[in-house]
């Protein structure tokens, strides 16, 4: 928490923004042209910071070359207005389009890279853009471009410091508006989920590469917009303004202010641009003192000066009905299996997967009938989770076939598998820890939501209807799993059992035909386990076929219709719980492992 507002909160949250806006608007009355210039500098960096915040703060992609987009926007505007004789306003769409295209060009081939590798790719791209601008003739070489006309509206020239300041405020408000729209949309939540845990995000149905690409493109767009403004304001640009150091400064704005925090980023811009100005009287010591201040600030506030809120208001609290409408009945969560067809819910055949010299899964085949609860059991290292990973596309099998209601899943990525109707949870809980409980569930709805990027940007009627429907469904799901009260908490604040249930709610949000639960009861005490099994039955009653992995035979036998036993990568038994208990090979597999106490104890006594 940044500042404890206490009882003042309602007052501050309601009037604070207007007060600041008013202050910002009357600022030129009290400031001389020097502080106005500094103000414009801060506003420019706030625009850049808000754009980069989408990439770094939201999507969690480290970008060390953001100045490249700033440069591309600036050069596009400069060239079109000097050589092409366009007005500033006419150049804007081109500046935005060129930087967006640059975003695609750098993003598309490289977004599969892991974050630190991506960082150097972006750094390299930034340098390539700057050096190219320095070396080419039409960009004016190291001289850059002079005599760019100032913007004007109906004959009024934005030439004075005052008018440029107000223009900067207007630009910042536009950027602020659209970045906030994006942040509070399907896309924004998907970005956050990627930042929190990329593979979990992919596994709940978020197409990570495409979503990252959009982060890049939007980051580029706002960077380009800031660049266009910069060029028209200074009326001269040169490659020296778009160095790696500049990219670093913009990154500082975001991290110092607070990632994914809009007030934080604006404050960050004020510090990064304003502090060195305030320190001008120190002469030689100026940047040294700034550096020390930077380190100290980061040590004191590792999350940033004004971090993003750690807890959200419960959207389903008192009074929510007025906004959302009446809650959905739990029956609304049920699904009809009529359209699923006659085939087996899940049909696995000949599945094989080798890790180095070890055959982790060796020719495993089993069939899950629609509407049943099927358990896969086996000692540690039997290959259970690998089977799950092969089914869900996390691991690519070396051979074999997986069919979901007759439809082949082979070769699909995890998010495509989710889209086809197969959801999962993880053995070690993988929630989006710093997101609110309800947001976790909303991310799970990603595959079924229809809002496209334009909807997300503009919050169209369609998008708002969909958001409301999603929230209502989310409310019902949380109630179904017993978490409604906790909807506004951070996922990391939940107890262990609640986290398990939240993961199930998130998986159910994708409206799966088949739900895979990987050791859902691990670490629970007996009564929690019983409650969980009740939940599993109720999920089945909604019309969802359930496949679960567990060691605990007691538990599994009570709830399952069908049990598959694996040992050392092979299936050794397949049948009803009674048949399994009577199977000698199963007994041997479990009891023959005295080195693993847990497994022995897990055998029903």
């Amino acid at each position, binding site marked *: 928490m940044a500042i404890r507002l206490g009882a003042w909160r309602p007052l501050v949250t309601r009037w604070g923004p207007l007060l600041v806006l008013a202050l910002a608007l009357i600022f030129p009355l009290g400031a001389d042209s020097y502080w106005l210039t500094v103000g414009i500098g801060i506003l420019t960096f706030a625009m850049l910071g808000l754009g980069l915040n989408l990439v770094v703060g939201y999507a969690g992609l480290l970008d060390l070359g953001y100045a490249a987009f700033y440069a591309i926007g600036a050069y596009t505007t400069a060239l079109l207005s000097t050589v092409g004789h366009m007005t500033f306003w006419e150049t804007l769409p081109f500046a935005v389009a060129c930087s967006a295209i640059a975003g695609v060009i750098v993003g598309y081939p490289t977004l599969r*890279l892991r974050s630190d590798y991506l960082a150097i790719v972006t750094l390299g791209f930034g340098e390539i853009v700057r050096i190219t601008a320095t070396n080419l003739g039409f960009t004016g070489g190291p001289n850059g471009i002079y005599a760019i006309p100032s913007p004007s509206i109906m004959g009024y020239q934005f030439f004075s410091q005052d008018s440029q300041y107000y223009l900067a405020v207007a630009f910042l408000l536009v950027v602020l508006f659209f970045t906030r729209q994006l942040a509070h949309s399907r896309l924004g939540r998907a970005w956050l989920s990627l930042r929190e845990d990329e593979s979990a995000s992919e596994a709940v149905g978020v197409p990570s590469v495409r979503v990252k690409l959009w982060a890049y493109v939007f980051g580029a767009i706002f960077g380009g917009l800031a660049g266009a403004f910069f060029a028209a304001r200074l009326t001269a640009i040169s490659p020296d303004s778009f160095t790696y150091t500049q990219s670093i400064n913009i990154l500082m704005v975001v991290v110092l202010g607070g990632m994914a925090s809009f007030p934080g980023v604006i404050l960050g811009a004020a510090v990064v641009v304003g502090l060195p100005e305030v320190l001008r009287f120190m002469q030689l010591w100026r940047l040294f003192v700034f550096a020390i201040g930077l*380190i100290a600030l*980061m040590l004191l506030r590792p999350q940033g000066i004004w971090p993003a809120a750690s807890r959200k208001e419960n959207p389903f609290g008192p009074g929510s009905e007025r906004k959302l409408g009446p809650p959905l009945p739990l029956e609304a969560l049920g699904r009809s299996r009529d359209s699923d067809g006659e085939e087996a819910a899940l049909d696995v055949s000949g599945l094989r997967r080798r890790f180095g010299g070890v055959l982790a899964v060796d020719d495993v085949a089993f069939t899950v009938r629609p509407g049943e609860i099927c358990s896969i059991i086996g000692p540690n290292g039997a290959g259970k989770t690998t089977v799950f990973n092969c089914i869900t596309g996390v691991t690519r099998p070396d051979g074999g076939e997986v069919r979901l209601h007759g439809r082949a899943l082979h070769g699909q990525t995890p998010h495509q598998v989710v889209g086809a109707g197969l959801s999962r949870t993880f053995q070690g809980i993988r929630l989006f820890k710093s997101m609110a409980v309800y947001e976790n569930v909303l991310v799970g709805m990603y595959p079924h939501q229809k809002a496209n990027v334009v909807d997300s940007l503009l919050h169209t009627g369609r998008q708002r209807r969909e958001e409301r429907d999603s929230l209502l469904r989310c409310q019902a799901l949380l109630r179904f799993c017993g978490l409604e009260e906790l909807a506004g908490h951070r996922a990391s604040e939940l107890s262990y059992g609640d986290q398990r249930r939240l993961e199930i709610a998130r998986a159910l949000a994708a409206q799966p035909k088949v739900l895979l639960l990987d050791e859902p009861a691990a670490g629970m005490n007996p009564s929690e386990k019983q409650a969980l099994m009740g939940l599993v039955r109720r999920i089945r009653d909604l019309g969802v076929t359930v496949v679960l992995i567990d060691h605990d035979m007691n538990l599994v036998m009570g709830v399952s219709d069908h049990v598959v036993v694996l040992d050392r990568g092979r299936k050794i038994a397949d049948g009803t719980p009674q048949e399994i208990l009577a199977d000698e090979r199963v007994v041997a597999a479990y009891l023959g492992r005295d080195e693993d106490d847990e497994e022995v104890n897990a055998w029903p006594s």
Partner: protein
Amino acid sequence: MSVFVQYLVNGLTIGSFYALVALGYTMIYGIIRLINFAHGDLFMVGAFAGWLVVAAGAGMHLPVAMQLLLALLVAMVVVGLLAMGMERVAYQPLLKSSRLAILITALGVSLALENGAMIAFGAGFDTYPANILPLSGFHLFGAQVGYVQVAMFGLAILLMAGLYLFVQFTPVGTAMRALSFDQDAARLMGINVEGVVLITFLLGGSLAAASGVMMGLYYTQINFMMGFLMGLRAFTAAVLGGIGNIPGAMVGGLLIGVLQSLSAGYISSQWQDVIVFAVLILVLVFKPTGLFGERVVERM
């Protein structure tokens, strides 16, 4: 042919300086997953420390070899300690928070070192004695090779080999490798994690300092901003080789040097950085974890 060999020789010389700095990047990354942006500036501080020693040594009329050895040792020790202090003050308290927070303190440390050096030594260029090392050399396939070049290259290889053996065959080295696998497990095994991290900084800092002194001796000019570009290059080299991977950093450094030399020679110096970065990006697109794969303090 002779020209090609000339480019190669020159590229390997500068590449060996890059490699020494890249090693520090890669070791620190391998252990605490931090891109230590201040590492290039340790190189700069090393160059200045060595310069002070050489100047003092000349004042005391020490033999040249003695001056050089002393400069190297003092710089390595001073900068190694500085690196440890840096870790303690600016990084260690943040190891448990967001990785970006440490990244920013690293940038802060970098800025502080650069401007601190500017205040201490002035903004201008200082120079190692220009004629302290012989300019003579020999011909190899028509290329001119300086004795100093060979010596520098040899010393760099020696240091790298020393590091390799240290990491591979000493208990501390084994602990470092364990840490790069799994810090929590290493802690549970009774490894003094903080201590090992500090030693990593000590080693990384000393190697950077050695590179700084060698580069100062070879090119004579030193300046408070010299670490900036070096840091960028070394970071690139470390990633090219596969960050976290010690042999990768060595090969990456040499490759970047040669690549720069060849592209400056055959295309144009003004495009050399574009070419280096373009090659890096291409390599990463096809081999997403660099040439030698990542985090392979363990796989050496």
